[in-house]
């Protein structure tokens, strides 16, 4: 039982596709940015792009936390992992992300004690079981993952677990969207906003896209029917001249989000003045660090880090992919020098990355073969 069957109905998909066809204006492209890598993945896994008419252009956004981590932060993580006595814990997706000095997986091969976890709570349990070791968790992700880190920090403090710390790289979704909207020359007609981030921050968080940039926003879940329905909602807004934040994912997302989750984040973390995003550069008030009250659990305070900024490889065009300026297949190394097995850029490492989604689902070149409806 996965609670998703009704959102993969072929019959419903055909019905929604017919409505989309009726709503588009022949020859007028509608550029819709799906912010989240989860949506990108779903669009290609389920062939949504082939269902919709060619006037619908999905532009892939920056909402993949693995993809936006700068190489220097990966090097900092490797430095932590290679410290004697440290057990470095991380989500599996980060293991293969290349920094300037290789990846965490390569550090593990050299002897570092790097362990994959599914939850920061698992990292805390490792700390409880290894009181003579320092256990560091590579905290990364948007507002959906930050609450898990927050809960873990609060439990560590309550229980007095002193050999646990977090290397905080959490980021927030609003500032990069603003940065993209401010990008010169980038035309976007609407946004499909991430469903589960919105579970935490609420649909209210996107009001600025409507009030300041006059673009429709539809907060959307991750099954193919959800995405098709969101496209219908976007097209109806455009047809009617409306600019609103609409909620397609009403079964989970509320206007105000989850206030407990936001409170847990705010109790443990605070905004950094600025944070570097791969492809987007430095964005003010876009990253989180631990609050001073949690200094005892802050790996950046407890351990010395290199903190060196590393330039992205020149051949890699992840930066342009991340803001939707080019499609993955337009990158000069896509599918040749850069593959999921030997990635150069982060968009090919993460399975949610746009390049990996294109590669894994056979989009090695541009094809728009339509499915008859």
């Amino acid at each position, binding site marked *: 039982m996965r609670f998703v069957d009704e959102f993969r109905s072929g019959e419903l998909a055909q019905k929604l596709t017919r409505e989309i066809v009726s709503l588009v204006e022949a020859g007028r492209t509608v550029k819709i940015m799906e912010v989240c*890598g989860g949506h990108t993945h779903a669009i290609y896994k389920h062939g949504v792009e082939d269902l919709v008419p060619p006037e619908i252009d999905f532009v892939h956004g920056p909402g993949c936390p*693995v993809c936006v981590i700068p190489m220097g932060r990966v090097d900092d993580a490797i430095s932590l992992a290679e410290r004697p006595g440290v057990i470095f814990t991380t989500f599996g997706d980060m293991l293969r992300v290349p920094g300037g000095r290789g990846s965490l997986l390569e550090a593990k091969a050299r002897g570092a004690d790097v362990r994959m976890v599914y939850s920061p709570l698992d990292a805390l349990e490792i700390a409880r079981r290894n009181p003579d070791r320092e256990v560091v968790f590579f905290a990364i992700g948007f507002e*959906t993952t930050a*609450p898990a880190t927050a809960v873990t920090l609060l439990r560590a403090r309550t229980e007095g677990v002193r050999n646990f710390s977090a290397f905080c790289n959490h980021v927030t979704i609003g500032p990069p969207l603003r940065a993209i909207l401010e990008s010169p020359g980038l035309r976007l007609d609407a946004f499909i906003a991430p469903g*589960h981030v919105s*579970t935490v921050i609420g649909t209210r968080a996107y009001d600025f896209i409507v009030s300041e940039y006059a673009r429709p926003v539809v907060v959307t879940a991750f099954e193919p029917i959800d995405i098709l329905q969101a496209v219908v909602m976007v097209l109806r807004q455009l047809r009617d001249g409306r600019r609103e934040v609409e909620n397609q994912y009403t079964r*989970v997302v509320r206007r105000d989000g989850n206030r407990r989750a936001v409170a847990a984040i705010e109790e443990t973390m605070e905004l950094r003045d600025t944070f570097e995003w791969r492809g987007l550069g430095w964005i003010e008030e876009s990253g989180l660090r631990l609050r001073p009250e949690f200094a005892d659990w802050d790996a950046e305070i407890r351990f010395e880090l290199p903190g060196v900024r590393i330039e992205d490889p020149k051949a890699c065009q992840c930066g342009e992919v991340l803001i939707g300026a080019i499609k993955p297949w337009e990158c000069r190394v896509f599918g040749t020098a850069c593959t999921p097995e030997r990635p150069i850029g982060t968009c090919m490492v993460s399975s*949610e990355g746009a390049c990996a989604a294109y590669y894994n689902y056979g989009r090695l070149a541009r094809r728009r073969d339509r499915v008859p409806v």
Partner: protein
Amino acid sequence: MTLDPERCITCGDVAVTARVIEVRGQTATVELADHREQVGIELVEEVALGDLLLCHAGIALEKVASTQ
């Protein structure tokens, strides 16, 4: 939470929906297709047996309204 192997846990949008079969303090046991997991429930109000929870990275993020 156990995930679709194609998906990336770092992205919060791989959260999964699971049904509560036991509640003990701040931890609930939830049931997926073929296994059970324990998740922290500090961030969700009044979790009860049978509730559907949206779970990610070892915690429950929200209750899910039934689509039935």
